[in-house]
């Protein structure tokens, strides 16, 4: 490939090849503090290639490729190249990662203990984790929590935070350093998106695990409510939130069973981000 870039994020590493310079330039800028893959060998390859014969120059659009790919993924405009690269890395993890139980969740850490937030797209888990990461917590990741199959620890996967629509404004109000923001990508399939470089500490400590201590199911846009979630329900919801539960078989069952039976789970409905954060802090104080 003409342009390429390598990066290690938490325990995983990627090699990204692109037919265009632009997406690689952005990756190099935003991931400048991240290490290279160990020994220069990456776990996964991501390819950003022209989506059709003429699509390199004429209305350039990106076909997403690599080791693993979604068969019916729609091409993305070249100006959304950074999003394409991030999606490419997520697809590799979701479909190819076998070293941990992968749960679709954001996570933050305090005192060696991890808070996991899981929910559907739009639940606010990403925004809440990013905000907590600016307020005394260590940001561990906004997409995947990696649960150790042997110890049950949560491992970070702190790639760029993908902020959507209103979350962009919320974090701009919080993060003073403009260098930490990528370009705002307008009119992507998921609305407006901007990428945020996680705090320095999230990157320097990206190979430190934490013990899961609280599991939260946030839901944005509903009247404030808190209720404990029974173990059976947590188990089922997490099998649905995991992309490799089936692929890992018995090991995943054991890890998930341990997580569910040792970590309290709470469903949190909320209308305002500030109140949600206050609720999380007080829940956390009760747990400690």
């Amino acid at each position, binding site marked *: *490939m003409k342009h390429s870039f390598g990066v290690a994020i938490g325990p995983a590493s990627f090699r990204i090849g692109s037919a265009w310079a632009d997406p690689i330039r952005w990756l190099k800028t935003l991931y400048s503090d991240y290490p290279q*893959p160990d020994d*220069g*060998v990456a*776990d996964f390859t991501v390819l950003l290639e022209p989506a059709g014969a003429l699509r390199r120059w004429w209305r350039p659009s990106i076909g997403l490729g690599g*080791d693993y790919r979604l068969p019916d993924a729609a091409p993305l405009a070249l100006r959304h190249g950074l999003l394409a690269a991030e999606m490419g890395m997520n697809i590799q993890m979701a479909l190819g*990662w076998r070293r941990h139980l992968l749960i679709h969740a954001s996570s933050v850490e305090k005192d060696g203990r991890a808070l996991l937030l899981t929910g559907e797209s739009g639940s606010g888990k990403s925004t809440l984790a990013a905000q907590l990461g600016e307020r005394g917590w260590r940001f561990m990741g906004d997409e995947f929590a990696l649960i150790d199959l042997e110890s049950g620890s949560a491992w970070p996967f702190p790639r760029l935070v993908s902020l959507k629509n209103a979350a962009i404004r919320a974090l701009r109000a919080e993060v003073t350093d403009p260098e930490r923001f990528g370009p705002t990508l307008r009119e992507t399939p998921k609305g407006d998106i901007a990428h945020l470089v996680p705090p320095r500490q999230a990157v320097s400590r990206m190979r430190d695990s934490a013990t899961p201590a609280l599991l939260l199911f946030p839901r944005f846009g509903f009247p404030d409510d808190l209720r404990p979630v029974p173990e059976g329900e947590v188990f089922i919801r997490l099998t649905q939130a995991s992309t490799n539960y089936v*692929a890992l078989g018995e090991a995943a069952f054991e890890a998930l069973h341990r997580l569910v039976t040792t970590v309290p789970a709470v469903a949190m409905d909320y209308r305002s981000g500030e109140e949600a954060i206050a609720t999380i802090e007080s829940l956390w104080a009760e747990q400690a």
Partner: protein
Amino acid sequence: MSARLLVNVLRRPETVAACGSTEWNGLVAAARAERLLATLAHRLERADVPRGVRAVMADAVIDAQREQRIALWEADRAREALHPLGIPVILLKGAAYVAAGLKAGEGRMIGDLDILVPRDRLEEAEALLLAEGWEWVKSDPYDSAYYRRWMHELPPLIHRERDRMIDVHHTILPLTARVTPDAPALIANSVEIAIGLRVLSPEDRVCHALAHMLADGDLTGGLRNLWDIRCLLADVRDNAALEKRALLHGLAPHLARARRLAEYLFADGNTPLTLPDRLYVRRLLSRDTWGRERHPITRFAFYIRSHLLRMPPGLLLRHLWTKWRKGHRPS
């Protein structure tokens, strides 16, 4: 080119010692794309491999083990479902290699379950599978009619709870192909591996693998097919018997070509190749260091060839026209 490197390393695992990070990245990408990464992992068990690559290979081994476990379970389920037929289930391809504990099964990724039943029992087999929870994958009446009239297998069935596909064959090449293997002979010579389960004889296993690779299809995944053939050839004790068998099935020239290709790529590399052989090699080694397939013209030629092999030109034109009208385009 990474496919070349992959072939060299499969042949002589100790040569990986010379690989730098660029080569390792290319090797992993090519092996993954050819579904040979777990096979490579087995070959490199005692070689000097960087820690990161070990981890990638361990992941591939986990995947292969899972696919093998599922394939054996599916074989067991098929045996159970077809029990009323009163005939054994004959396993083909990956599931057969793994169930019989063959070298070709080491690290073998397995997609669908392939089984062989006598043609005159096909309808009964179909009814039994449908009754036990398998259902049609393709709802298109043209596709279904095409399979039934011209193919060597039933339209693919998928199990509604376990989500696994089964291909029920009555022979090993489409009925429209120029070569007509002797299906009753395949069944007659099959060998028992467990109660109610059989696999083809060592000679017929080679014949099936090379029919699949060289008399059918466009050589997508051909490197893995050729690796199968290399391993299966080593299980054949009597070469004369194999030659005779290939002749019976009309596959003698295919056997000769498969031997040349396997020797050229996986043995000493000094085997004299014919000019067409060189095109096959070009097609087989098309993966680059990013795991992409190169040589689009060669690949397209093999794509056209695959259709010509399967059908006489008149039928082919009619088929392509029907598919085109339905919106199908070659990828």
